[in-house]
């Protein structure tokens, strides 16, 4: 049963229960019933990465977003001068790469597992199919993701303000972070 293929095909209910519990605790699937979470579980793809392994590459077409089940992912961007900067460290229970879920655009940065990591991939074609099959559930998920993306946008704007004020040489006013973990 170690092989994920057979574990999935003959998936014992215990594993499914644990997965449902995990999904329940994720902000992206907040407010979903157990039946709805079972439907979500059907669409997610579990991927295992070793430390340093690339999840996706900047500039390549993206298939969807990833949720960190175990481990950690670093989001890095190449600069013009050939340097690479780290934009964020995505911790357990948080997601990244959500832009590919909403639009078929090239990845704006690369993702690397910093240690042995397990990710849950939620891909755009599956969301599209879910929108056709169960629009109510798709709407709930999209609303949750939009809320989280809005929060990130607010944080990004605040970070910009801090940078601007540092450039201008005046003190910045920053609101306390709403989440203890750093998101990408």
């Amino acid at each position, binding site marked *: 049963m170690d092989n994920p293929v057979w574990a999935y095909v003959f998936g014992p209910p215990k594993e499914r229960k644990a997965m449902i519990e995990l999904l329940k605790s994720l902000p992206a699937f907040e407010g979903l019933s157990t039946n709805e979470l079972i439907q979500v579980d059907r669409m997610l793809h*579990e*991927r295992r990465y070793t430390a340093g392994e690339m999840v996706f590459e900047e500039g390549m077409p993206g298939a969807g977003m990833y949720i960190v089940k175990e481990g950690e992912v670093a989001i890095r961007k190449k600069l013009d001068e050939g340097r690479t900067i780290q934009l964020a460290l995505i911790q357990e229970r948080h997601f990244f790469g959500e832009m590919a879920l909403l639009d078929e655009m090239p990845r704006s940065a690369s993702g690397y597992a910093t240690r042995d990591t397990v990710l849950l991939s939620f891909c755009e074609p599956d969301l599209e199919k879910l929108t056709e099959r169960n629009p109510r559930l798709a709407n709930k998920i999209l609303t949750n993701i939009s809320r989280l993306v809005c929060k990130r946008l607010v944080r990004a704007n605040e970070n910009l303000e801090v940078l601007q004020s540092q450039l201008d040489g005046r003190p910045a006013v920053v609101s306390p972070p709403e989440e203890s973990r750093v998101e990408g």
Partner: protein
Amino acid sequence: MSKDSGVVSHTVVRFGYWALAIGVTLCVLYCMYLLFVPLLASVLLTFVLDPVVDYFERRGLKRFWVIVGMYVFVVLAAAATVYFVLPRLVIEARTFAGDIPHYRAMIVRMLQTAQATIQDKFPQLPVPDLYQVLRARMPGAGTVDVDAFVAYTSSFFSILSVVVIVPIVTFFLLADGHLIRKALLRMVPNRYFEMFFLLFHKITSALKFFIRGQCIDALAVGVMTAVGLAAIQLPYAIVIGIIAGLGNLIPYLGPIIGFLPAFFVVLVSPEGLTMWMLAKVIGVFALVQFIEGTFIYPIAVGKSVDLHPLVVIIGITVGGQLGGILGMLIAIPVISVAKVSLEVLHSNLKSYSII
């Protein structure tokens, strides 16, 4: 020393793993080869039925019960077809079979008249026996293929496969298709996961759209032709409708394939070839082609497959050479499916800078 033996044992295990994986894959492929026809039929049926299941699932019904309900409906519909349509079809087929000697005699007479006329006008020209030439050159002379096909369809195994394997496989593909897809995607290395996922999705979407469209188009043409010909009281309307529907899978030649048997029926009808009947048959085919070309094809199939006439001609010729009439029939759908897959593959591999 121990490190070396560790490396060797790793190599052995790796070699064993790959040997086993290749062995299992070959076994699976061999099983798939044995069951190729029923498996292909199940996949095609799944492509056609999937949106119907989705439709009812969207309305809050459980997928499993939708599929069960659909099976019950299909059984009832099949029973109704057997009860209402089959007797007429059997009568048509029996009448046709009974009339064959009459038709053959009629054709022989016509050919003999033509031969006599030619010989009369060009006495120096050696004119062969036209009937024998026609018999030898008829595309239907691929009797080996027809025999093989009949032998296959009538064998116990193929009946079993159609009656048992196709419904069961289709049931699981409809109910658990996502599990199979998930299991397949798990085998893809992480590096290629996203690319493979998008390719897989785009190719299957394009194929679904194309196969579904072709089926709807063929069904519409078949039904319209049968209804139209029945309305003008042409014998064998249902049989000709089925031929026209299937023939419609071949672009350009489709209408001709449907029209030829109808023309033949008019030609050998007891009243003989009357212009009025011929005009009515042409009218029915023209109307069906107009409705199909203007309303059905653009919506059902669209521009997804736009094959050049030359490709169609070469495809049909090669298909005919390889598989007789059946080969001619499936050549264009196979080329179309290959074209759609290659187009998607090409554009995506380009976007991944692989080609």
